[in-house]
């Protein structure tokens, strides 16, 4: 670039906001993460134009893997239209001008916070997680110097003791989200604060899974078909959340993760799919739940 261009060109942000140098640095960290599944790779996270804790890690990872032909989906709590998902999607619409979608099957890159889509992901897809605290041992040991040592030595007794204490106190493990997993029998990993319901979807997933923690400056990854096993005990096997006899009030789905919606102050509630695209797709296919307006029409 000549000095002329430097001075005359109107200032504009690079494709997907980050400059190419930064993207290269992040891609190196991602590659290292893929090479060592579950290992937290330190990276020089940049200050982003959204606050720390609001997806800066995920946004940097997405910005670094996004190409012009990609189709992007952004979800928060499983839904495409929650405010922060909308905000992040707008950010990429503005800075990368890539095609956007809300359909899980159409997307090549999906950035998520707190959920994994219900629909099974495929080889050509990348799931990018926003991670607040990447260290699964953090609440047992606050010091980074210590936890890194524990990972290096595969010294995971502490976390097993914690799970054991849960069982001793409550009769069952009292961790419901950010439930720790063992990756390829080597690293204990935080799956980000997804409900443990979603843990089995990580196991041997066909899609590439990338995790970005901006404030904590860590990236980690699960290459496709990686072993991801939720920690448990032989006599207390890992279980996921269940809603027996419950179906989605909108689409009638069962066995999915539900949002509980409070209908009034008299204790009435209903359950709907947390994955909004899954729910809408089912409705458009003709599946209707009992509280769906079309349902009553059909009954008449």
């Amino acid at each position: 670039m000549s000095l002329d261009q430097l001075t005359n060109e109107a200032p504009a942000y690079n494709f997907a906001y980050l400059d190419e140098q930064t993207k290269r640095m992040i891609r190196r960290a991602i590659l290292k993460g893929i090479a060592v599944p579950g290992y937290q790779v330190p990276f020089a996270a940049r200050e982003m134009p959204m606050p720390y804790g609001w997806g800066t890690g995920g946004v940097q990872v997405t910005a670094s893997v996004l190409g012009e032909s990609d189709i992007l989906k952004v979800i928060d709590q499983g839904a495409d239209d929650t405010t922060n998902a909308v905000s992040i999607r707008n950010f990429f619409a503005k800075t990368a001008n890539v095609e956007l979608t809300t359909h899980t099957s159409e997307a090549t890159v999906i950035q998520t916070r707190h959920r994994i889509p219900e629909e099974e992901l495929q080889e050509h897809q990348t799931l990018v997680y926003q991670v607040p605290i990447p260290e699964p041992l953090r609440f047992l040991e606050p010091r980074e110097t210590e936890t890194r040592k524990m990972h290096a030595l595969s010294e995971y007794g502490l976390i097993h003791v914690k799970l054991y204490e849960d069982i001793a106190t409550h009769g069952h493990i009292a961790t419901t989200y950010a439930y720790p997993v063992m990756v390829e029998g080597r690293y204990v990993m935080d799956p980000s604060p997804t409900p443990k319901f979603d843990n089995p979807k990580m196991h041997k997933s066909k899609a590439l899974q990338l995790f970005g923690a901006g404030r904590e400056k860590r990236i980690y990854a699960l290459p496709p078909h990686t072993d991801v096993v939720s920690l448990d005990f032989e006599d207390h096997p890992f279980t996921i959340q269940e809603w027996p006899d419950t179906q989605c009030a909108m689409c009638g789905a069962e066995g999915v993760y539900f949002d509980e919606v409070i209908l009034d102050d008299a204790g009435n509630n209903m359950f709907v799919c947390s994955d909004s695209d899954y729910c809408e797709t089912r409705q458009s296919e003709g599946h209707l739940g009992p509280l769906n307006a079309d349902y009553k029409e059909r009954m008449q």
Partner: protein
Amino acid sequence: MYVAVKGGEKAIKNAHTLFAAKRRGNENVPGLRLDQITEQLSFAVDRVMGEGSLYDPELAAMAIRQAQGDLIEAIFLIRAYRTTLPRFGYAEPIETGKMAIERRISATFKDLPGGQVLGPTFDYSHRLINFDFDPEAAPESPPSSDEDIDLNAEVPRVSDILGKSGMIEPDHQFDEGHETGDLTRTPIDFPTDRDVRLQNLARGDEGFLLALGYSTQRGYARSHPFAGEIRFGEVELEFFAEELGFAVPIGTMEVTECQMINQFKGSAKAPPAFTRGYGLVFGQAERKAMSMALVDRSLRWKELGEEFSAPAQDQEFVLSHSDNIQATGFVEHLKLPHYVDFQAELDLIRTMRKEFDAQQNKDGDDDAPKMEAAQ
């Protein structure tokens, strides 16, 4: 019927519009001009430059105006802008010994080479609200010095004066080949050296450092500090130009430097001598520079062979929580929806409540003494 949180897009747009209206306030009141902020709210500008780690008063003023006076928000704006700037290289170290002094005080010597220069300060003013304050009134013209202090003369630093007699530890030296770290380009790796620690403190939150520094004065890692010197003024900034083969001046900037002198009785590792804590901040920011120096000194416990006992000595605790942009982001992210996780917890609490109630009912059937024993 079911309405949930649909329409996030429209809500965000409306929120922005509402906020823009709030920012402007009553339109009969003239809008703030940038020069009003840079000229009359200089401490706010300095703080935003310091913690935003970008020296540009006009940009800081823009950020303050846009953030409606929320300084942490303004710092955030500056940081997010700073990160997009191309990096040409690193400036030469500034020479604060050659500072054009505006203010320079020492609490350790009554008089010293270069003199005490009180300069512009809040110190010794009575904090009485001036009800008759006229913002348009021209201030009295500042008196000229009646002593022969040449403010343009080089004023040696107190630490250098003390250093000549060997009473104070020498300036911090790194091993040969030590490359100065850059925490904006490399994530902090604990334990970290003093260069990176000072960088972290220099952009750290003033309030956080103030509280930590204060804690060292109240016995949590007592470090017996004296304000050896606080100086504020303009320094020249130089950049080594590869093409020319020498450093060229690229501008000036105002900084506050604080050299804290701390009593040290010696340890197995070091002889008795005065030790230093160092603070350096953009603009006039004495509270911050002093707090930084106190915390810098307390973080040096290991190198000096002191006992570890307090939060202000704990690298990981101090450096991981000093950045107000990280802190405000993570605290405020609690405003984001968490209903997926909350649902999981709700489910768990319901289960545990059921178990608890069942246990209570069972215990209720038994006699009272046994219940006590069980508890």
